[in-house]
């Protein structure tokens, strides 16, 4: 029957089918898999994951890569987001296409392209050899820098979009006011844009950092087996050594770190909004 006003509002019913799918094929398997890590009531797998130097080193590598990727994305992403937000609508549309096209192009395609560009016989090395700039090819692949370049390329749009949004929200009259008061461009940027877009920078940095932590494809292909990140190690435990409890312990550790960063970020955002 028509339950008048309450009938205008929906209950949880339409969400139920999706929730069932999410519970059965996402939450349940993840929780169950993580449970393997403490099967038999022992924490030995965690001790191994976080205690043994080799594995701990992988975690530290992962953090180091995520940090550098985030920093580079910030340096490259801010000017781009700023320009997109302050240019004419026509240029902005074009600019967006050039950000979204890479974003939606398969990571594999892009990774392959970087191999073509950065390889020993790749486009860059060839060009520099022929120009006489170098006498031996520079190793740019299968090492730290290769992974970094590939990951920055994949994650840069995630930094650009929130920064774009933040710059768009800056009230233009504030900027005109500052200009009217004779502030220089640098000063306007430092005193108006930077503080007002800080939440956007923060949001972008958190997304990029957290996504970096779980990266698999780029380090697997551009790292050449020399740059191991946590996700690659988890895959190896499942596919090669079939060590499920250890894979589960690594996964749980990665998940806890990821969720903790999200939780901290949310708390930080909320308290800065309240201020």
């Amino acid at each position, binding site marked *: 029957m*028509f339950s*008048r006003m309450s009938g205008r509002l929906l209950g949880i019913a339409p969400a139920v089918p999706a929730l069932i799918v999410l519970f059965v094929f996402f939450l349940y398997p993840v929780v169950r898999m993580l449970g393997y890590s403490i099967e038999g009531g022992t924490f030995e797998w965690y001790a191994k994951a976080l205690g043994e130097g080799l594995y701990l080193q992988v975690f530290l590598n992962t953090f180091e890569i995520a940090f550098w990727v985030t920093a580079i994305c910030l340096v490259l992403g801010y000017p781009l987001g700023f320009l997109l937000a302050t240019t004419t609508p026509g240029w902005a549309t074009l600019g967006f296409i050039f950000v979204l096209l890479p974003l939606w192009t398969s990571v594999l395609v892009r990774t392959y392209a970087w191999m073509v560009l950065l390889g020993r016989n790749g486009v860059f090395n060839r060009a520099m050899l022929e120009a006489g700039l170098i006498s031996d090819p520079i190793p740019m692949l299968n090492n730290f820098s290769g992974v970094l370049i590939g990951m920055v390329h994949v994650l840069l749009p995630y930094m650009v979009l929130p920064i774009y949004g933040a710059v768009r929200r800056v009230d233009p009259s504030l900027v005109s006011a500052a200009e009217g008061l004779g502030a220089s461009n640098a000063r306007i940027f430092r005193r108006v844009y930077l503080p007002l877009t800080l939440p956007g920078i923060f949001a972008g940095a958190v997304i990029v950092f957290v996504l970096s932590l779980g990266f698999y494809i780029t380090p697997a292909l551009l790292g050449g087996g020399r740059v191991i990140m946590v996700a690659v190690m988890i895959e190896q435990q499942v596919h090669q050594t079939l060590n499920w409890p250890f894979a589960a312990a690594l996964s749980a550790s990665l998940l806890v770190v990821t969720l903790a960063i999200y939780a901290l970020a949310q708390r930080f955002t909320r308290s800065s909004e309240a201020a």
Partner: protein
Amino acid sequence: MQARSADLKVQGLEKRFGEVAALDGVSLDIMSGELLTILGPSGSGKTTLLKVVAGFEKADAGTVRIDGIDITALPPARRDIGMVFQNYALFPHLTVRANVAFPLEMRNVARAEIETRVTEALQLVELGGYDKRLPKQLSGGQQQRVALARAIVFNPRLLLLDEPFGALDRKLRETMQLEVRRLQRRLGLTTIFITHDQEEALVLSDRIAVMNQGRIQQVATTTEIYERPANRFVADFVGESNIFHGTVTEPGVISLEGGRRLLARHSGKTGQRMGVLMRPERFGRGTNVFAGEVKEAVYLGVSFKLRIACDDGLELIVRQPARGELPAAGTRVNVSIDPEDIHVF
């Protein structure tokens, strides 16, 4: 097109939003074929009243009856009420014809009949030939007409108009007002019109219900509302006014605060406190004479509007026919008003 004119009876409606009473015991009778305007400032509860009548909002108490049948519990879709919304609420993805046909389709009217009735309705609002356009391709006035056609095409028992002219410019607004009035008369459609614009209310209505703070202050014909407002709020809200308070000292005389004695017809007893209303345009000849100095004078085309500081301390707004020179500020003037032209409440 034949209207199934109905009468509407609203009784004891109450509606609270938290601490605020949007409707505080509202009762109202609207006769078949009548155009009644609900006039009030924003926040007076007039929109809530409309929503309760339309069924979009559920009242805490009270009943709504159409032709004696209680529709309080019916969903909006089954009330058979035509409604024109503030922003018209035309469906942007449907053509003009499809918009107007929508209520008929929802009533499962046969295709052929839909065609003829939509054509008829569009002609009625003088939009024949615009069938295939989308709402965004029409001007504001044309959109308004489509909304009107859509609201009447299914022969509703009642038509509700929620501040429909607010978005139109002045000239178009006046045209549309007359058009709505003409259509409503021709169809004999019982209509409730909501507005905060008192001038619009005076132009359009058979009767006006003035609302404030969730209550109906007065329900009366347009002339009665203007000439004989029931209380200070109505006097102040409808038209320009000079309002004072005083005490009855003897039959036919009221002493205003500040000592001024005013000759006026009233039914009060000696010692009773009463309100006094003098409309600015009623000043001319009369036995109540005020001497004073012009503080401000504005030329309004047909009239001068003067703000006069009287020697006895009163301040009056007076309109005079625009003849000769606009009096300069500081000019000494005498204005007078007949006791018959003073309304006491």
